[in-house]
């Protein structure tokens, strides 16, 4: 007999002397005890007489609760520079290992976010994400937030790995697509303190010079877009 058999023997003996289970619930009377086997049908019966609430999805899409954890969004500063600095804290926090980030240096010709660093590669794998929102809590710049969008299904694996361009917030009013220089005289600190409220003329000039076709330039915005803001 080997050592492990000994262990099993001891365990079996212990199992043998297990205490019998006793419920904490108050004891029911004999009548209820007799009805107990069919009590569960009560729920079904009750619902026979209630209005039907079939969700008409996808024909009708009901709004979610306001703080529902849906698809992520990478936000922008009011002048259009990206908030993400590529710090990878979201990737670090993620319990499902769904986020992949590669950072890079901003340069004067290619300023994507305020300061020195920006996220060059940003991917969220929605086949892994469990929508826990820990990444949102980790983000030091409020770059990453969650939208209420919940329609995250698709026919391919690749399609469910969202790239940076799929996650970036749409351009708002007064925003100018990155890359472009920071507002003159500001630091990354000014951006975090929300002292920058929109793109200024110098930035518009710079984009005009480097990317005259850019659709976010005032002259290239369609009337409809401008109205939408």
């Amino acid at each position, binding site marked *: 007999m080997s050592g492990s058999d000994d262990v099993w023997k001891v365990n079996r003996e212990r199992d043998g002397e297990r205490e019998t289970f006793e419920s904490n619930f108050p004891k029911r009377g004999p009548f209820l005890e007799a009805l107990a086997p069919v009590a569960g049908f009560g729920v079904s019966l009750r619902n026979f007489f209630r209005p039907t609430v079939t969700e008409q999805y996808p024909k009708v899409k009901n709004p979610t609760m306001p703080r529902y954890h849906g698809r992520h969004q990478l936000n922008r500063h009011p002048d259009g520079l990206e908030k993400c600095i590529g710090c990878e804290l979201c990737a670090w926090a993620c319990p499902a290992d769904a986020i992949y980030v590669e950072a890079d240096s901003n340069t004067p010709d290619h300023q994507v976010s305020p*300061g020195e660093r920006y996220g060059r590669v940003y991917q969220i794998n929605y086949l892994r994400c469990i929508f826990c929102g820990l990444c949102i809590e980790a983000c030091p710049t409020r770059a990453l937030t969650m939208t209420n969008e919940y329609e995250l299904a698709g026919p391919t694996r690749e399609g469910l790995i969202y790239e940076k361009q799929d996650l970036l917030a749409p351009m708002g009013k007064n925003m100018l697509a990155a890359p472009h220089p920071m507002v003159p005289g500001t630091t990354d600190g000014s951006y975090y303190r929300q002292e920058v409220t929109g793109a200024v003329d110098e930035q518009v000039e710079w984009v005009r010079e480097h990317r005259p076709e850019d659709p976010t330039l005032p002259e290239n915005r369609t009337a409809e877009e401008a109205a939408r803001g």
Partner: protein
Amino acid sequence: MTATADKPATAVVDTVTLTIDGTEVTVPKGTLIIRAAEQVGIEIPRFCDHPALKPAGACRQCLVDVASPGPDGNLRAFPKPQASCTMTVTEGMVVNTQHTSEEADRAQKGVMELLLVNHPLDCPVCDKGGECPLQNQAMSHGRPETRFVDVKRVFEKPLPLSSEILLDRERCVLCQRCTRFSKEIAGDAFIDLQNRGAQQQIGTFDEDVLDFDGYRPVGAATVDEAGKAFSSYYSGNTVQICPVGALTSAAYRFRSRPFDLVSSPSISEHDSSGSAIRIDHRRGQVLRRLADNDPVVNEDWISDKDRFAFAWQNLSDRITRPLVRKDGELVEVSWPEALAAAAAGIKAATASDDEGSARGAAVLTGGRVTLEDAYAYQKLARVVLGTNDVDSRARSTSDEEQAFLGSQVAGTGLGVTFGELEKAPTVLLVGFEAEDEGGVVFLRLRKSLGRQQVLTVAPYLSRGAEKLGATLVPAVPGREASALAELPADVREALSQPGAVIVLGERAAEAPGTFVAANEIVAATGARLAWIPRRAGERGAVEAGALPGLLPGGRTATLKGAREAVAKAWGVESLPTAKGRDTNAIIEEAAEGGIGALIVGGVSASDLAGDVATALGRTGFVVSLEVRRSEIAEAADVVLPVAPPSEKSGTFINWEGRLRAFATAIRTDAMSDHRVLDLLAREWGVELGTATVEAVNAELAALGAASSTERPAAPKARAAGKARTKKGTAVLGTWHQLVDEGALQDGEPYLAGTGRVAVARMSQATADAVGAGAAVSVSTESGTIELPVVVTAMVDGVVWVPTKSPGSWVARDLRATAGAIVTVKGAA
């Protein structure tokens, strides 16, 4: 020589017994409290303390409560907490760390709070985030909330100390590890502490740049404390030891986070020291390399080349599939097709022509491949191609060197070690520049500064030699043998001290008679010899027999007995008897159309003084085993891709003779040279037996080292006569600078920026004689190099230029080696 040579002799050491946090511990006298605490598993927070640096007590993070017995024997407590990293233990001392003393804990928390007052806490954009001692210790020993509400001190950032090393002054905790490393270990003037109080920062002292002595980095750099542009070959170590993210490297800046990285221990492929490194990679791409601690080899340090030069293997010209030339173009084909084409091509090119005469095949392998690869190359040459024309030395060679390597290096096991080199009372360097050609060898020698006499046989005292406090034994390049023969009596005497070492570099092969002269000195003084080549694979190739006259284990290929022993072990009838030719002779022969087929692996054409282009053009069939589309690969008929060091396993043998085996860091389907050669040999129906590292090592072990009767005779050669320079000519002196334009440093512009600007050096008399102005042109029949002149105290009649630095590619442009007579003219 036994394997225990590095262990210090067990002597009786005085010990001291003290109590730390209630635990009694006995340690050798002179131990620091912080080290004694480590021995009983008590961690005291620290920033400035580093086991390899002298104590500084700069950061005050390691404060502990100390009490020691006074003269009356009663325990007396120090009035204030003491820095445990500067105080040595005494008998009966009682130490209470933050774990047992509230006072110490409060003191540490206070220091941490002060350190964080001006720290930007920009961890999200800091490269150290995730592996930062400040982050970790702030979490374990700091306050959870900050009380500081004022504006923090800011500096412009980053300050580029050199093109590679960046300094963010606001993150600095003024621990001075960096400045201490630079002064104590590397000997390079760094920038130093300046200003006081809150404005104290690592910066430069004087603004005025002193005289330019020719040592300036290629890229932009901050001026060091001496007022010169900061330039060091070891600066990457400061990034690794900086306990915060104040020093970062441009190459790794914003690249990654520690949790992304997979770390694999490895061995550096850059020099013959075999430094232990750690390769950090992500998704199959190397992102950085760090020094690994190996007490018997590189200790805690590596050179910048070991650290930063890794981009070459993943450049866009990497070859991933075999290439075969079809209609003049190299096209991608499958492995079976390429192997068949290679074998068929070689067979056809070496077949007898109508008159029955055949051109032979030859194998060239640069000194960069592993022991296993070198073994496979030479076995293929001897067993399949039937030739002794195999050489691993893509540099100057001589028969004298080969005799020396065969009789005194191959199969001798561990010779002089790093530790013995450090302890040697006298070291004579011959044809060897410790800093430029030795990497960490230089740091080991410098460790003994003041305790060791270093002599260098060279045309001038280089800055590296100066930092070793070396004495110059002046020698005209190529005539080192005469300098050795005329060595002054006091030097000979110094070399007779027990433990003295003579270091022979690979350039000893450029000076006829050097090995003979060195052996004579050894016979007279009893000094020991160490051969330190530059490249990582040189020693391994010698052991593997990848030299024309050497079979594995140091057996000479010209002795029947030795050949028979190897033939028997390999299970072949006989081995080729014809005398093999070395690299330069093979290239020469090929340029004349005398070689039928060439197999080349890991050779840069620009390292060879011969006419490689013509040689390749006139060779019947060229097979190249390459990682990248090199010049030779472009000219080859079949190119077989092989794995770079990080994608394969193998063994380098460092100059000590120590086996430095490394495992695969990144798994890809790239194959090692030895495996590719094994497949190639099958095309002849030969089982080479080199498919795996294990198979090769088993064969090598079975062969063992040569017996004394199988070895070549000791080197014999006559020293070169006096150099005859005419007016307007000079003797060429040259060596590789550590950071230069070598093929393994491609694709790393930040590192290249720390390399030194190429200059031509000559004495005032020589400069006057050739009429040198601010610049000179150095020329031979083959070409010209034009460089700025730096007048240096050196041997007259000699001009020195770097071998492969920007604007100075000696082998390619001058087709000359050290000791050649070159024309020197003043240039505009």
